[in-house]
């Protein structure tokens, strides 16, 4: 097989399709009667980022995978340093200190931390004496994920922190004990319940389930089970309390509002619910085939905020309709399945885990972003991969893609 044919053109084509859709829709979303030049400027900037990203992908094809495996730790440390450095040199944009301003461009190191964390986790799991089922090993993995997540959370940028934490799913796929996913699920359940029905009722529920559980067991077993069950109940109560505490005391009102609107506890289409209401109107009014390119009334009227970045999907929904949205989702699903397919064909654990990290990051980005604009998930500010306006995000995903393509290329060597 010659070199060109071995290259994963399939993924490359999906990538090109997605970025083209991105450029088209960024232009439409940024199109503004007050400032006609703005759309051109923004598309030019995004195009430059795309050229740089393309350059990265090209260069990465000539770098051996072993290089990444060897230097993963160093990349990881540099990334952590860049995150920490934000405290000193970062500039604040819309409330979060997560940017380095370099010339006319601004860089967001947390985007690149996603790649670095994926590399670090891959290297950790890939080393020959690591077994994810062992507590020592999974604790190290947790720490590797946790440090950048905490640094990002402190900026504060909870959205990106959530993305980093999602690498936990990769650990699960790699065989992390079931205990953790159970804890995660019950924690999520408790979290939602606490917000929905209040702390006291959750306490009542926990106590009731504890009693019911114990009474259902045989008498002689009760004694041994009691302490274990009681401990779980206590932890649950503690968790519930802290959820409520964080929600009421640590969160700001805007965060609370986001959850409340989603849970249907508050309805206010003009005030705090404006974003989500407008984005649903834009998408919903696209109907089957959309209003046509540059014809979206909501998009042109500027009704949807942040439209070229986090809410870019509303432009697609309005101007291309259901046909457009389903096409984009299909493109993403095809790309993710392709990467997944490639991941499990990799010979080395390092490559496999890195590819899974890529899939995982993509998956969370797409699900959370689209889930947010269609009103299924609370407002969490993360971009739609390859499509949203924003150089750092695009470059980070280009790095992911570049390394992934090299891995697949090298596998068939």
């Amino acid at each position, binding site marked *: 097989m010659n070199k060109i044919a071995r290259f994963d053109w399939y993924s490359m084509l999906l990538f090109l399709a997605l970025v083209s859709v991105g450029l088209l829709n960024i232009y439409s979303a940024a199109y503004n009667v007050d400032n006609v030049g703005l759309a051109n400027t923004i598309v030019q900037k995004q195009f430059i980022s795309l050229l740089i990203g393309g350059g990265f992908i090209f260069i990465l094809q000539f770098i051996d995978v072993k290089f990444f495996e060897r230097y993963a730790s160093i990349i990881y440390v540099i990334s952590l340093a860049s995150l920490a450095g934000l405290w000193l040199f970062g500039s604040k944009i819309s409330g979060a200190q997560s940017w380095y301003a370099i010339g006319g461009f601004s860089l967001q190191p947390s985007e690149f931390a996603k790649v670095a964390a994926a590399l670090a986790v891959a290297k950790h799991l890939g080393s020959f004496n690591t077994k994810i089922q062992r507590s020592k090993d999974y604790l190290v993995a947790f720490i590797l994920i946790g440090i950048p997540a905490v640094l990002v959370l402190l900026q504060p940028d909870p959205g990106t922190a959530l993305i980093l934490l999602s690498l936990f799913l990769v650990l699960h796929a790699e065989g992390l004990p079931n205990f953790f996913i159970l804890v995660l699920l019950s924690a999520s359940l408790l979290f939602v319940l606490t917000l929905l029905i209040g702390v006291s009722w959750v306490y009542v529920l926990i106590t009731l389930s504890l009693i019911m559980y114990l009474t259902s067991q045989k008498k002689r077993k009760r004694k041994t089970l009691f302490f274990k069950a009681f401990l779980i109940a206590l932890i649950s109560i503690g968790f519930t309390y802290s959820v409520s505490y964080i929600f009421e005391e640590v969160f700001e009102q805007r965060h609370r509002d986001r959850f409340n609107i989603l849970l249907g506890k508050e309805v206010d289409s003009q005030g705090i619910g404006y974003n989500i209401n407008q984005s649903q109107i834009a998408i919903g009014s696209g109907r089957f085939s959309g209003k046509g390119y540059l*014809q979206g009334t909501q998009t042109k009227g500027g009704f949807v905020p942040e439209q070229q970045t986090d809410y870019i999907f509303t432009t697609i929904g309005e101007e291309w309709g259901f046909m457009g*949205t389903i096409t984009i989702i299909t493109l993403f699903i095809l790309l993710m399945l392709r990467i997944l397919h490639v991941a499990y064909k990799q010979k080395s654990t390092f490559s496999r885990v890195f590819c899974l990290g890529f899939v995982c990051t993509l998956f969370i980005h797409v699900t959370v972003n689209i889930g947010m604009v269609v009103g299924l998930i609370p407002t969490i500010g993360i971009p739609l991969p390859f499509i949203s306006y924003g150089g750092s995000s695009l470059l980070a995903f280009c790095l992911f893609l570049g390394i992934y393509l090299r891995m697949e290329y090298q596998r068939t060597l």
Partner: protein
Amino acid sequence: MRTHFFSFLIFSFGLILIFRLFSLQIVSEEYNDLSLKNSVLKQHIYPERGYVFDRHGNLLVSNQPMYDLMVVPANVKTFDTLDLCNILRLDSEDLKKRLLKARKYSIRAPSVLLGQISKQDYAVLQEKMWKFPGLYIKRKSVRAYQTDVAANVLGYISEVNYFDLENDAYYQKGELIGKQGIEKTYENELRGFKGVHYLQRDKFNRIIGPYKDGALDTLPTPSQDITLTIDIALQEYGTQLLANKRGGIIAIEPSTGEILMSVSTPSYAPEILVGRERSANFNELKQDTLNRLLFDRSLQGQYAPGSPFKVLNALVALEEGVIQPNTKFTCYSGHYYARNQFMACMCKPGTVNNLNRGIHNSCNTYFSNVYRRIIDNDNNPQENLNTWNKHLKSFGLGDFLGYDHPVGQAGYVPSSNFYNLWYPNQRWRGSTIVSNAIGQGEILMTPIQLANVAATIANRGFYYRPHFAKEIQNGSIDLRYKTKQYTSISKEHFNPVVEGMANVVKKGTARIAAIPGFEVCGKTGTIENFTKINGVRTQLTDHSMFIAFAPKDDPKIALAVIVENGYWGGRWAAPIASLVIEKYLKGEVKRKWLERRMMKGSLVDEYAKVTSNKPFTINE
């Protein structure tokens, strides 16, 4: 390793998202409506309403700018509110309330601060506009009248009401519609057809450009100007002649059916129904139930026709062959038409009248005999009355005549069935209903029907439907106004009647109507009439009526004049008709003394009797 974990996640969440998008974009209609509501503005472009001209091309109705003071609250900065209040005669509380209301509606979209500012206020305001940031002036178009008369013909326009909106999907709230007169009949022509302009709004309610690049927009169809058959000089002259009298004059050109004038007094100046005072003025007009300013006496007034009706009976009798022009009856200052039932007449006792003398002396005895011959012929009153009815209907009696004005009354011509209800077992005959002979019975006619009868006699047997529109720009008037309507009376029977009418003016009851150089034909009428005062049927002073046409052999004008409670035909109606004819045929009036007497003459005291609550005498 859990190799299917991610595939499971990707498929399940992918399905959830697709399902959600399906329900959002395909199933739910709601978002599309919301989107159109908040981002698309439908704006109408109205063509300027058409002009109205008189038959000689004089402009009667045009348009004038009216000004709305608009406000964009976001752009308002502190300004001298007192100054603005002074110019517009508002108090500052009111202004504050209006500003708040506008702010509540939208902070960036314009709303009306004060509507319908006159030209005068606008002139003052315009010079000071720089002092009031955030305010601006929007021009709109309302009617402008170049005449003080003819309000009853021109009608008026007003904002559409609930029923207009229900009846015609074309209209939307706040738009204008012709409500009365020509404005109503020719609404479609005068209005044109509005165009639509779809505009795109942004989140601040600002207009940011055309929607879909104007693909859905439509251009307005221009309105059409209308030339009326009215001669405005004649209309003005007629209005002056009827000053301080209740009545109507309606004149028709016999050779075309064109209505030359249609006066109803008292009336109002059309311009009072324009501008900020419109609704106050309109209520005032509507509430005046004594003068009935909105009531068109020429078209809607139903009167017993009185003596002019005699000429119709003569025509029917001639057609039915029950009399000849030389048939004679003797009058004894009246006659007994039944036992102890005497009908008086102005003739000297023993006067022998033929048809010609019967008409110009207006002999009641003569026409009672004629009428009884019509009805009692062959002892068959049932059939004969219906024949009589049929002949009268061919003159347009008991019918709206089909003219192009929205108001009118049909009048009434009785048939046999009518009397069969009154008199059981068909026990009635000519003498029972002899009042009809002299136009006093159950017959009701409007002045326009009387004028039309005059025109028909002038034409010797046919008429054109009377109408107000002479020309429509880029269009033509209805064909039915161009078609001759023949009566059921043969042409040869008209000449004896016309001769009789000529003698009315030459040596009969209306000698005052004679105009040197022209042969005028006419017939006077003196009409008994009654009203109810506090529930008691009370007779009032007789109406003065006159129908005429001239010149006799080449008729140019036919008309009917009624002056309510004017005592007798020759007193008011005949001189007024004669002055109108003179003015129309000669262009100017030589008989200034008569003109003065008519213009100065007032019947205000006569009308005051009814409301005086005191006993009064009539016909004095």
